């Protein structure tokens, strides 16, 4: 019974970590859109290249935040949560 409980806890952590990484989809699409629009802007006005690029990189880094949250959650589920569950179940 104890082993089963531990197994279920570990399984939940692993599945949760996998689900948390779904958060990577959103920033991927968003940053792709941002880069596409920046390329359009550079194509229209090549003289603005440096300012468009720096603004785009800033926007990309901010848009990346939700993906990073997912990554940090996944890491916590893999490295921190199992130990906590094992302490609790022991």
């Amino acid at each position, binding site marked *: 019974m104890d082993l089963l409980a531990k197994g279920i806890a570990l399984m939940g952590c692993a599945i949760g970590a996998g689900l948390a990484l779904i958060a990577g989809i959103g920033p991927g699409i968003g940053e792709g859109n941002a880069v596409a629009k920046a390329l359009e802007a550079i194509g229209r006005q090549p003289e603005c290249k440096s300012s468009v690029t720096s603004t785009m990189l800033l926007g990309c*880094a901010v848009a990346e*935040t939700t993906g990073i949250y997912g990554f940090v959650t996944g*890491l916590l589920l893999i490295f921190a949560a199992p130990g906590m569950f094992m302490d609790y179940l022991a």
Partner: protein
Amino acid sequence: MDNINISGAKVYGYIGPDIPGLGRFPLSETLIVSWIVMLIITLLCIYLTHNMKVEKISRRQALAEWLVEAANKFVIGNMGPGFAYFVPFVAALFSLSVFSNLIGLLGVRSPTADLNTEAGWAIVVFVIITAQKIKAGGFGGYLLGFTKPIPLLTPFNVLSELSTPISMACRHFGNILSGIVINGLIYAALATASSELFGLIPGVVGKVLSTIPILDVGIPAILSFYFDWFTGVMQAYIFCMLTTMYIANAAEG
């Protein structure tokens, strides 16, 4: 699979008295490397700025002047000339972040791969933002600011205020740590691949070659260029950019 080693910062020992509830003060890898980074920056500043002249400047002094001018341009360009007194703070934050990220290239663990470091920086920035808000509108005005545009939104305003430092810290931390994790996985995968690949060669030659991770030479350097150099400098820039923007916004009231 045994050679994948992704761990947190090591703790070398404990110092100080045993505080109830908190325990003794841990002397972690993050702390030691942070002090090394601070030492490097301090020595670099002393080296760059000693023996300065007005005429016939040396190359060293030209570099120092260029750095100071870049910092001035960055802060004044983003915040306006009234905030020139933030130049040392933002420059210190930027240099600390860049050196902390890049010291990972020397084989030690970056201090920025520990959430505590970024959390400290983010808390400092949060205190400055709050101080600027109180300075701009008074303490009552600061509290009233949470009830805008309608009082119903007060909990959400408080949440969004608190999420500023959390998102700043997690963004920087997550980017640096993801680089470390991906680099670790790539090294382990290439080592396994090269041992399997060269194990196909029959005889003694194959046995000797399969013990050496030959594919680990060169290929990870390309990824390291993105994950260490680009991300490291980029995240330092983003952190400073957001700091200046938040402070300037807060001061406008």
